[in-house]
């Protein structure tokens, strides 16, 4: 039977990918960040999941305004890195797990989640930067990957509550899969940041730290936070945090916290990471 072995929460700032790709991780600007996330490398080396379900958002890359899915799942065999204007990132192609992805899709839809099923999917920094953070620069990614893509660009994104419920359904779906595979779930995006408007550059450290504490120890209390509060307190792009709640919903209510790290700034963003195991 498939088994969920842990969850990672991490921002997915594009500049982190560029820093890794260009070998800048030991430069003064980057060293504090890469030192701070070092434990995730050790942890993943130890738990070695067969499959990573990466919850992320597409940034006007694969999808444009013509069709905007709220929740899309990638059921294809391979996902090429998308060209985001600089050429595709020099990372290995992302290998899917169609059998498990279709199992999850079927389970989630029958469980009342209205997934969009995507066979033809390129993936942008939202998905590849977390892989690079966790695995570094291997010749091939050492896990299969199932992309779970969430709309957070077009208002309204799904609510935090809905995301958490999707995570709970994802857990049921994983555990009803017969083959004996190990699965990790990544919730990506956030923390506070705003890329646009006169408030560009907004960071709300205090709110982020309080939210992270709740995220680990009392996630149900975060579910009543509405979009207006996220937009106001964490910035127009900080609302990406709802994606972390999918990962959290997949984990047990009580978890063991392996690592927590917070750092400002990364580009225009506050960076956060947590690693969780079921207790």
């Amino acid at each position, binding site marked *: 039977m498939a088994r969920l072995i842990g969850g990672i929460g991490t921002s997915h700032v594009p500049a982190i990918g560029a820093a890794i790709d260009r070998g800048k991780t030991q430069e003064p600007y980057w060293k504090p960040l890469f030192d701070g996330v070092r434990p995730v490398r050790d942890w993943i080396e130890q738990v070695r999941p067969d499959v990573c379900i990466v919850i992320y958002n597409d*940034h*006007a*890359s694969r999808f*444009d*305004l*013509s069709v905007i899915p709220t929740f899309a799942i990638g059921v294809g065999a391979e996902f090429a890195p998308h*060209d*985001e*204007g*600089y050429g595709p990132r020099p990372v290995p192609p992302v290998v899917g797990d169609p059998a498990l992805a279709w199992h999850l899709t079927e389970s989630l839809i029958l469980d009342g989640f209205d997934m969009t099923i995507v066979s033809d999917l390129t993936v942008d920094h939202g998905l590849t930067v977390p892989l690079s953070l966790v695995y570094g620069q291997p010749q091939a990614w050492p896990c299969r990957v199932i992309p779970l893509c969430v709309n957070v*660009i*077009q*208002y*309204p994104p799904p609510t935090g509550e809905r995301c958490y419920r999707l995570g709970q359904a994802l857990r049921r779906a994983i555990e009803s899969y017969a083959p004996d595979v190990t699965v990790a779930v990544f919730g990506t995006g956030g923390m*506070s940041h*705003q*890329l*646009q*408007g*006169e*408030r*560009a*550059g*907004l*960071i*709300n*450290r*205090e*709110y982020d730290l309080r939210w992270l504490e709740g995220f680990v120890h009392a996630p149900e209390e975060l579910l009543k936070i*509405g*979009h*207006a509060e996220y*937009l*106001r*307190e964490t*910035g*127009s*792009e900080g609302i990406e945090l709802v994606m972390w709640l999918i990962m959290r919903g997949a984990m047990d209510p009580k978890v063991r916290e392996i690592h927590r790290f917070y750092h*400002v*700034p990364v*580009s*225009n963003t*506050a960076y956060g990471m947590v690693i969780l195991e079921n207790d």
Partner: protein
Amino acid sequence: MMNSPHEYDDIPGTYVFDGSHNRLGYHLNMFCKSLDVAANRDAFRSGEAAYLDHYPLTPEQRRAILERQWLEMLRLGGNIYYTFKLAIFDGLTMQHAGAAMSGNGMTTEEFQQMMLAGGRSITGNRSRRETPRG
């Protein structure tokens, strides 16, 4: 453009990309999206005005694009992930765009310094009611 009131309307300096913005900026954003394709970038580079003729833009949107008025594009329905494709085309960074959108003459260097110092403070920036800017 009809837009029912939203709780987020009073957040200062923030253009929430909702249905109204989507309708207003649809073609502006889809123009930006077209720059994903190398051949389109070449065509745009070799004649910006002619290239824009293929998109049903308002005169204001055309001008904002041609003059790279980053804040104005947001007001006219632009979404930052789309308009930033035009900034990438121009070889600009997110710090440049951030400074330009600050709307107070901030330079890119000043914006970078603000980020290094912990970013723009939330204090005074939660609601139009609390900001002098109103």
